[in-house]
């Protein structure tokens, strides 16, 4: 239903997302988990056709987002992270407008608005001006417009951010219910949230997919690797086999060094293992000179530390109408 093919997005020189490929099957709920700045929102904006990818493409319900943008957009319901709404319209007029620009016919639209208002429990507020609603209720209006036209694909960008804990629980239940008859992609930086709601989880960090897994396995059985950079003075022929024998080392790449009497290696190691100590020890024992030993990029463990793992960290912001 959703297929991302090698999506890369540059903002100027800065790569926000690089080489992202994944697919979401019909009826599946995919969690897009990553710390702030990982590239979640950028990916959502590309999938929904708001911004074009620098390279690569995606297909929504079989339609290419760049070449058949209009058809692709017909199949999407989208809730952006900022929950943009027209402040001076009331809930019902707003939903009516959003339904019309999604091509819904008037009589059917009227009935569907009532259904959606019921489903998102907005009943008391149907005639309230949106600007007067609290964050939690604005979120519900945002979700209402996303599901109004019964799209095949739902894209929800951090749908529980900034609302109070009780509403968070309700919203998650609502999303889970929606997942029963939609293909759904949900981004979040909260680990328990995606484990609870999603069938499958993609962990994204610095614009790249670092792990794909079932919620049950997360944290225990992660796919992936990490790398260590080593610079050593000594004979390559002797050093290389020794390093390869270290337990946990998957492969070693010898990098070119310009004008230096040393060698530089990129050692790929099993995920979650910190081999820096072992590697240093074996080099020193071999009698070679260790010039540099550095972890390349962030390990998955470190990424996890930057995710919100505890529910208590949810910001509090209660009150129905402000």
């Amino acid at each position, binding site marked *: 239903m959703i297929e991302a093919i090698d999506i890369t997005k540059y903002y100027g020189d800065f790569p926000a997302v690089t080489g992202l490929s994944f697919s979401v099957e019909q009826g599946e709920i995919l969690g897009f988990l990553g710390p702030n700045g990982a590239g979640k929102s950028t990916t959502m*904006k590309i999938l*929904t*056709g*708001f*911004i*074009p990818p620098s390279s690569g493409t995606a297909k929504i319900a079989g339609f290419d987002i760049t070449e058949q943008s*209009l*058809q692709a*957009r*017909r199949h*999407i319901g*989208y809730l*952006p992270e*900022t929950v*943009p*709404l*027209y*402040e*001076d*319209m009331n809930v019902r*007029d707003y939903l009516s*407008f*959003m339904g*019309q*620009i*999604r*091509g819904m016919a008037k009589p059917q639209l009227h009935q569907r608005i009532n259904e959606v208002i019921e489903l998102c429990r907005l009943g008391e507020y149907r005639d309230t001006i949106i600007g007067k609603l609290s964050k939690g209720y604005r979120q519900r209006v945002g979700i209402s*417009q996303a599901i109004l036209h019964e799209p095949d694909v739902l894209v929800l960008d951090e749908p529980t951010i900034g609302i109070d804990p009780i509403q968070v629980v309700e919203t998650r239940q609502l999303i889970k219910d929606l997942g029963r008859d939609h293909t759904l992609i949900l981004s979040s930086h909260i680990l328990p949230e995606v484990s609870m709601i999603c069938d499958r989880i993609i962990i994204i960090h610095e614009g790249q997919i670092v792990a794909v897994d079932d919620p049950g396995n997360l944290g225990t059985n992660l796919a992936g690797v990490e790398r260590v950079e080593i610079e050593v003075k000594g004979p390559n022929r002797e050093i290389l086999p020794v390093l390869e024998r270290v337990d946990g080392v998957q492969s070693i790449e010898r990098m070119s060094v310009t004008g230096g009497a040393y060698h530089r290696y990129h050692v790929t190691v099993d995920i979650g293992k910190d081999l820096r100590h072992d590697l240093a020890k074996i080099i020193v024992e071999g009698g070679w000179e260790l010039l540099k030993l550095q972890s390349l990029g962030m390990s998955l463990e470190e990424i996890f530390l930057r995710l919100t793992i505890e529910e208590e960290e949810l910001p509090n912001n209660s009150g129905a109408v402000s």
Partner: protein
Amino acid sequence: MKNLIAITLKETKGYFSTPSAYIVGTMFLVLTGVFFVFDVSKPFAEAGVRGLSDWASFFIVFLAPLITMKLLAEEQKLGTLELLLTSPVREWEIVLGKYLASFLMLLSIQSVTLYYVFIVYFFGNPDTGPVISAYIGLVLHGAAALAIGMLGSSLSGNQIISAVVATAILLIFSFINRVSSLVEGNVAEFINALSMNSRLADFSRGIIDLSHIVYFLSIVGVFLFLSIRSLETRRWR
């Protein structure tokens, strides 16, 4: 087409349900009225609406950008443009739909000035021809000014900046004929041809020149086209 109508209706409702449109409209009517009355109360004033349409045209330069400034700027500021552009709606439907709403708004403000025309007919015996041509000129000028306002609104998420940019462009188009006296020959002719004011003067004198009509409609076309392009390239920024 359905999208366009939905957008026009939404914006029109928006105009009539917010006080700012009424305030701006009233200001326009009062200013136009005051200057017009000042003109016709001079000795030997002719019975006609020439002064009225001249002043109305002058104030449209400031009125039109105030009407259009929120149309696209607010969508960018609130982020609602993201939902609009990810709906199955084309950029031209958005621009044209909003433009039509602003045109309806301007027409309703302008139609109130007919009250002054009624007064002129009540107290005098004006030539009907120039009255009609003056109003045609006024509507065409308004249409062009709103299109320029749309471009201003597409360029920024800040309504003030949008209005200032549009007013600046409009002032250039209005008064560029003053520059033509500084240069000679073809250049002067070209500059004169670009100017709105020299053409508006013809309308208020009772002359309906086809080239003037084509001129104003071209401005509408060009600036709406630029607004659409500006909205399209928003995605790429």
